[in-house]
């Protein structure tokens, strides 16, 4: 008897969803990111206008002054859709949890020098209120933004900001042996300490800014562009060794998260700039409008942290930010950040 082994080739009838096939041409297998992102938002057949803003549709491109031919051009270079995003963050959370446990077991923050504990309480822990504000601002982007490519990434960003606020809370608890006095003090500092009032005022102005793309730019590019280098990275250098290593372990996620989110933020700005000259001009105006005020607002905080080094450290961070803007195609006028007569928002 002879046995023939045959392979039979079973072709799937269709490779992907029709909207993906329409967008990417031939009916070929799509990545999960494409399938979970492109053309998901409703575009037609809205039966009612939003009653609170009857001049707009529910999803409306006119809610920002940025004009795009295709709003799905804002693809995320990290290719985050729900599945990979959750997996990536779950892994990072495990690492961060064991870092916190290490810091706690060795009492690295609790037993740090009094001056360092006071410094962290006053200069770092209040940032949890900043993170909450950043969550609010990104919620605005999610609520009024157009196209799942950008609103999806912004939604993940809101969750990240809540997580960062919670990690800062954990640092407060570590400083205090799980008591809440440090958190209460940090809240009082955020509300009353002169070194935070400019920052708080700027955040509150951004809460009432209507254009969602401006909010995205100002919060995620401009505000973070100063807060993360100055408040997260540089602070380590002014702490004594014990507190500095406890601090580095506790903020490791925040620092690697910032490097990662820069990729998405810069890609979004680059896409908007590449679309048209008008967009580029608009982004440039927004940066030049907000940057001087933000530098002024942040100056007392930088002075409290770095003393007479503050101006140099701030200038370096501003220089980096301007260079980043240059790389995405926005030539920011560099004289404005240090110009005390600069226009304020």
């Amino acid at each position, binding site marked *: 008897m002879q046995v023939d082994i045959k*392979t*039979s*080739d*079973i072709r799937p009838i269709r490779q992907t969803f029709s909207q993906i096939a329409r967008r990417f041409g031939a009916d070929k*297998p799509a*990545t*999960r*990111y494409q399938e979970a992102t492109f053309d998901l938002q409703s575009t037609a057949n809205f039966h009612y206008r939003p009653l609170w803003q009857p001049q707009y549709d529910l999803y409306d491109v006119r809610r920002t002054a940025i004009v795009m031919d295709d709003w799905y051009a804002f693809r*995320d*270079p*990290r*290719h*985050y859709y729900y599945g990979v995003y959750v997996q990536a963050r779950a892994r990072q959370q495990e690492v961060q949890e064991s870092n916190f446990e290490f810091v706690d077991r060795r009492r690295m923050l609790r037993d740090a020098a009094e001056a360092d504990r006071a410094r962290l309480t006053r200069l770092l822990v209040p940032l949890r209120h900043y993170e909450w504000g950043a969550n609010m601002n990104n919620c605005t982007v999610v609520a009024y933004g157009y196209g799942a490519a950008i609103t999806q990434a912004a939604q993940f960003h809101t969750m990240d900001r809540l997580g960062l606020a919670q990690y800062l809370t954990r640092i407060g608890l570590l400083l205090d042996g799980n008591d809440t006095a440090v958190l209460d003090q940090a809240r009082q500092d955020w509300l009353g300490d002169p070194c935070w009032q400019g920052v708080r005022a700027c955040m509150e102005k951004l809460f009432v800014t209507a254009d969602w793309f401006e909010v995205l730019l100002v919060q995620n590019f401009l505000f973070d562009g100063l807060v993360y280098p100055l408040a997260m990275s540089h602070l380590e250098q002014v702490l004594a060794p014990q507190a500095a290593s406890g601090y580095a372990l506790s903020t490791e996620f925040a620092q690697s998260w910032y490097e990662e989110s820069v990729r998405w933020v810069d890609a979004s700005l680059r896409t908007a700039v590449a679309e048209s000259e008008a967009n580029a001009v608009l982004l440039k105006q927004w940066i030049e409008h907000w940057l001087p005020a933000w530098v002024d607002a942040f100056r007392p905080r930088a002075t409290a942290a770095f003393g007479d080094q503050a101006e140099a450290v701030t200038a370096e961070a501003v220089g980096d930010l301007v260079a980043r803007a240059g790389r995405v195609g926005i030539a920011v006028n560099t004289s404005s950040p240090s110009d005390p007569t600069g226009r304020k928002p």
Partner: protein
Amino acid sequence: MNNNVFIALQTSDEARAIIDAILDDNPAATRSDFPAMVKIDAPGRLVVRRESVGQRLGRDWDLQELHLSLISLSGNIDESDDEFCLVRG
């Protein structure tokens, strides 16, 4: 004499990014589909670039990860951290 090189890869989600990258980086390459396998032939030379695959996957990709999807290949291998190159002749 036939101086074609080829690489055969599984058709998994990950391998699709590699296949796309190879086809974009090697204009002379031809793709043939088989059940659960894609074979890419090219005259003389075929290159897999770390950067191109990483861009399509949205994360850093190590060239050694190629071996998770690799079924077979033919040609002499010239390998660095950034490029995996098949050559003949």
